């Protein structure tokens, strides 16, 4: 551990340490690197009681993130609601159900704002003036928004078939968008080569270890919002598979620091059936997942060769959790259900998570008395195309009271007439 920082990169396989550099894999064994902390020293400086004076956003946990010394959070990312469910909990027969709602994360309405926030702190530290990413949409939105605010040039790489709203939500910030004729896995492969060739900070490639640490704040907030306790179950959407491992890391760290009582939390992973390499691997008990060609409306989860898939599978198995997947019609139904019962409009990925939660309850894997948190990671306004067919245009009437009464009679029949004042 270096003397001037309480963290550095360490290989997840061989354990070799690499200091703090823009690199995502170990040069010795070519396995992924992650940020490792000196928890003994952290315990002395990171105190839960210090949080009371801080705003409720992700930077309140700064000591637990790989930030340069003296770093001041430049934006109010995170600090999203933990919604205690009543209606859906009742319908599903659960007593303690919560939705962690990153559909309203600042500034770009997905949990990717958190990872970009820590990645750009690293980009600044490593003197990159240009940042970018390979993205299924949400990440590009987050990179573009925060790069604009912080004065980086942004160049993002996306598959050709992304939802128009996600492309527009990147373009508006002035980012350069490079559309790739291929799926996300093709884009990601290209970005791996670009990171070798260009002096750019690609947040989910060469800045990946710093980037993925931002996800931990989703987990810290859950614990804090539950009154510094850990839930029994967490249901997490999986694309590359990083988020589920980082929420687990967040919970472990809080226990190490003594901020929560240690607890065995079950981790449940959610995917779309049309792109389910990780859930398929868990369900068939494979040693290695098999990559897939994505074919689902949940494009933000459409990663057929998930980089953190092996770690996600291990986390799920070790915790005693499970993984499931849902079809496109089930995703649409779950989006509507969440909106109608909880007032939360989530994108397709959230439909996946809610739909999978319903399935896990039906399977008896989530029990009524347990505390269950469902992670909603993106906003429905970004994927309206996926559900537009459910809501055809309604009848238009003239602005006259008798027209409205006739409309009501036609819509509702006799009861409407008796309801008139």
């Amino acid at each position: 551990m270096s003397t001037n920082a309480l963290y550095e990169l360490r290989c997840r396989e061989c354990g070799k340490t690499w200091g703090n550099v823009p690199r995502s894999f170990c040069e010795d064994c070519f396995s992924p690197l992650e940020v490792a902390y000196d928890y003994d020293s952290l315990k002395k400086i990171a105190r839960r009681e210090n949080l009371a004076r801080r705003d409720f956003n992700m930077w309140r946990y700064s000591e637990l993130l790989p930030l340069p010394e003296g770093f001041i959070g430049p934006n109010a990312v995170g600090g999203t609601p933990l919604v205690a469910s009543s209606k859906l909990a009742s319908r599903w027969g659960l007593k303690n159900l919560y939705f962690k709602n990153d559909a309203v994360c600042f500034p770009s309405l997905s949990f990717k704002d958190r990872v970009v926030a820590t990645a750009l702190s690293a980009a600044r530290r490593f003197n990159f003036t240009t940042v970018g990413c390979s993205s299924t949409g949400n990440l590009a939105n987050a990179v573009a928004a925060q790069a604009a605010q912080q004065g980086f040039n942004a160049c993002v790489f996306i598959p050709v078939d992304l939802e128009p709203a996600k492309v527009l939500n990147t373009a508006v910030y002035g980012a350069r968008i490079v559309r790739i004729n291929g799926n996300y896995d093709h884009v990601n492969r290209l970005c791996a080569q670009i990171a070798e060739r260009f002096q750019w900070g690609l947040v989910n490639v060469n800045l990946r270890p710093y980037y993925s640490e931002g996800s931990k704040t989703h987990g810290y907030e859950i614990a804090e919002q539950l009154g510094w306790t850990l839930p029994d179950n967490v249901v997490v959407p999986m694309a590359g598979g990083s988020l589920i491992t980082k929420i687990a890391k967040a919970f472990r760290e809080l226990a190490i620091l003594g901020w929560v009582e240690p607890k065995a939390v079950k981790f449940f992973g959610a995917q779309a059936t049309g792109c389910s390499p990780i859930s398929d691997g868990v369900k068939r008990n494979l040693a290695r997942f098999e990559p897939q060609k994505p074919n689902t409306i949940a494009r933000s989860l459409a990663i057929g060769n998930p980089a953190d898939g092996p770690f996600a599978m291990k986390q799920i198995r070790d915790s005693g959790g499970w993984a499931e997947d849902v079809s496109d019609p089930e995703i649409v139904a779950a989006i509507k259900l969440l909106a109608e019962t909880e007032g939360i409009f989530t994108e397709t990925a959230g439909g996946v998570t809610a739909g999978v939660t319903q399935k896990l309850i039906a399977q008896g894997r989530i029990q009524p008395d347990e505390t269950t948190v469902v992670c909603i990671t993106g906003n429905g306004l970004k994927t309206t195309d996926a559900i537009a067919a459910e809501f055809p245009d309604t009848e238009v009437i003239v602005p006259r009271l008798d027209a409205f009464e006739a409309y009501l009679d036609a819509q509702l029949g006799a009861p409407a007439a008796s309801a008139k004042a």
Partner: protein
Amino acid sequence: MPVTIEIPTAFRRFTGGAPNVDCSAATIADALNELTSRYPDLSRHVRDDHGQIRQFLNVYLNEEDIRFLGGESCSLKEGDRVLLVPSIAGGCQPFPSPEHARRGEHRNISCSAVFLQV
């Protein structure tokens, strides 16, 4: 068949700096074996203890992941390119490394040449 294996930067210290290795092979497995017999230090980075391609190394035949082509046994034809890409690869030095600078490989393009100024 004469084919070309593209070597990622991270592996080039094992290939004497060569970015491409030409070889003659009938299948992906043959190509990898020829590569590792020519550069034995690369062996443990290409295959694990069980002889499988390492979990965090992706192998592509032209544009396609070989796992969609039947794996290592898929056959090669003349002029094919085999691409090795460490999973979630990428990672450059904080500044152009001496090795990159010498070969003029690293492109420090960041502003007006590529970007709209906003």
